[in-house]
């Protein structure tokens, strides 16, 4: 295992210390509770917005804490949902009296831990609303199963509802918007390589030199199917087509196009994919009103990418464009 780390068990803690050392203008790090909190939290009268999940997806979520996005993030061990204690501590730290929104990605672990945390927070008199993102079209949707994973839409949702909460919207409206963004967004991902969880020390799966995994999540897991390596054009087609059809995108509609790197793929390749995606959308007369290209929701050093399309409405555009100042996303201030 080749990593820039000291001991595998210290990676998350030391990265938090690094964040604390370099971003003290933006956030404070509560090392005991293992949470990252916006420096000026709690803001009286503002809805608090928190999220969390396993580490290894950086910059998500810690890199999104700051003005106009998250009030706190709860990083778990690598690829492991954080525990209710962290979520409760974060909820309390950001509660300005207007309630707190929990943004939860749909994984059994995340859902169960956030559920317990919400119960505990409510028992302490804090109003909590939750949204569970489940945008991954690679997974069959069914009420009898664990359902679809929450992936790329989570990033967009955190920005949009973060902007809305910053603008002073009440909890119910923020939660309703969160649900709306989740409903209007879909994603799909693929991997060229596996990644190595530091505590495990070897790759999660083995992939032949001419193989790739289609329909992966963000936890270094294998995908829905293993296929022969293909060109960027073919791969983009494989990811974009199910998204467009699941979302029922029609000619004349406008989207936010998000080309996300899994961590180990260079930016130049993401732009090659972005180019293919732009061609596909243009061919269907769907306009790209906003876009995001880069490594935002990752799987450690996995090579690969995911595509997310979000059908935009005017409110979403307004809050997407609203000022944000976090370690990983910043504009307008």
């Amino acid at each position, binding site marked *: 295992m080749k990593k820039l780390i000291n001991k595998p068990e210290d990676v998350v803690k030391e990265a938090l210390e690094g964040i604390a050392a370099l971003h003290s203008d933006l956030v404070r790090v509560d090392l005991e509770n293992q949470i990252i909190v916006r420096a000026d939290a709690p803001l009286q009268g503002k809805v608090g917005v928190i999220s969390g999940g396993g580490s290894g997806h950086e910059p998500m979520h810690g890199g999104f804490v700051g003005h106009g996005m998250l009030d706190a993030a709860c990083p778990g*061990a690598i690829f492991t949902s954080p525990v*209710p204690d962290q979520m409760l501590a974060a909820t309390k730290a950001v509660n300005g009296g207007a309630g707190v929104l929990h943004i939860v990605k749909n994984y059994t672990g995340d859902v169960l831990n956030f559920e317990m945390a919400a119960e505990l927070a409510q028992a302490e008199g804090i109003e909590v609303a939750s949204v569970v993102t489940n945008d991954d079209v690679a997974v069959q949707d069914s009420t009898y199963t664990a359902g679809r*994973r929450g992936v790329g839409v989570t990033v967009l949702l955190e920005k949009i509802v973060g902007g809305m909460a910053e603008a002073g919207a009440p909890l119910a409206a923020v939660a309703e918007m969160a649900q709306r963004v989740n409903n209007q967004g879909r994603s799909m991902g693929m991997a060229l390589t596996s990644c190595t969880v530091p505590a495990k020390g070897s790759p999660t799966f083995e992939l032949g030199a001419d193989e790739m995994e289609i329909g992966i999540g963000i936890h270094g897991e294998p995908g829905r199917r293993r296929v022969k390596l293909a060109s960027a054009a073919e791969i983009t087609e494989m990811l974009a087509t199910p998204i467009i059809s699941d979302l029922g995108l029609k000619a004349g509609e406008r989207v936010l196009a998000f080309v996300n790197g899994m961590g180990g793929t260079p930016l130049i390749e993401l732009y090659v994919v972005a180019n293919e995606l732009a061609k596909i959308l243009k061919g269907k007369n769907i306009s790209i009103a906003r876009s995001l290209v880069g490594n935002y929701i990752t799987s450690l050093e996995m090579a690969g990418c995911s595509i997310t399309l979000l059908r935009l409405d005017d409110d979403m555009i307004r809050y997407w464009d609203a000022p944000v100042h976090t370690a990983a996303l910043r504009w307008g201030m």
Partner: protein
Amino acid sequence: MPITIDDTLRWLQRLADALHENRDYLTQLDAAIGDADHGINMDRGFKAVTEKLPAVASMDIGSILKTVGTTLVSTVGGASGPLYGTAFLRAGMATAGKHELDEADVVAMLDAALEGIKARGKAQPGEKTMVDALAPAVEAAHEAVQAKCDLIQLLQRCCAAAEEGMKKTIPLQATKGRASYLGERSVGHQDPGATSCWLILKTLSDTMGQ
């Protein structure tokens, strides 16, 4: 010969050791159909449990098990943290105030644990989860009481049923947990949670059998 406080503490310590030894094995099982952390999670949680044990060593079995439950909730994370946490919490509630557990107590404890897991995780048998090991074990415990088995026999039957249930997860297609994302590719792999569940029961049985 009932389960005493001392047996409980010995079980938990041996369980922590067993999970540490099986850390890579459980993680490897999870790598195939999950995210390669189950062994790491369980090891981290039970290491924390052993650190908590001295402080509760003089309490009743219910309190000890509840401490195990809250510790797991606070340290494991993932799906298994809330599930095993709830299981031990409920087991602790079912054995509240007890200084020893007879056959009927053990059955009540196992019933409570299973119900806790089902209430949290909403999984039924056949979905390729820890329930597939625990549910047959609980059934075997009930049958053993009816068959008037002694405690050791009861635990052995429990353990055998859990092992069989664990192995039967191999051909199943997962519909709950992370393995469900793999669809038909989840077939042919043993569920990591069912495996840790069997380890928990086996360690209890072994502790009492010696």
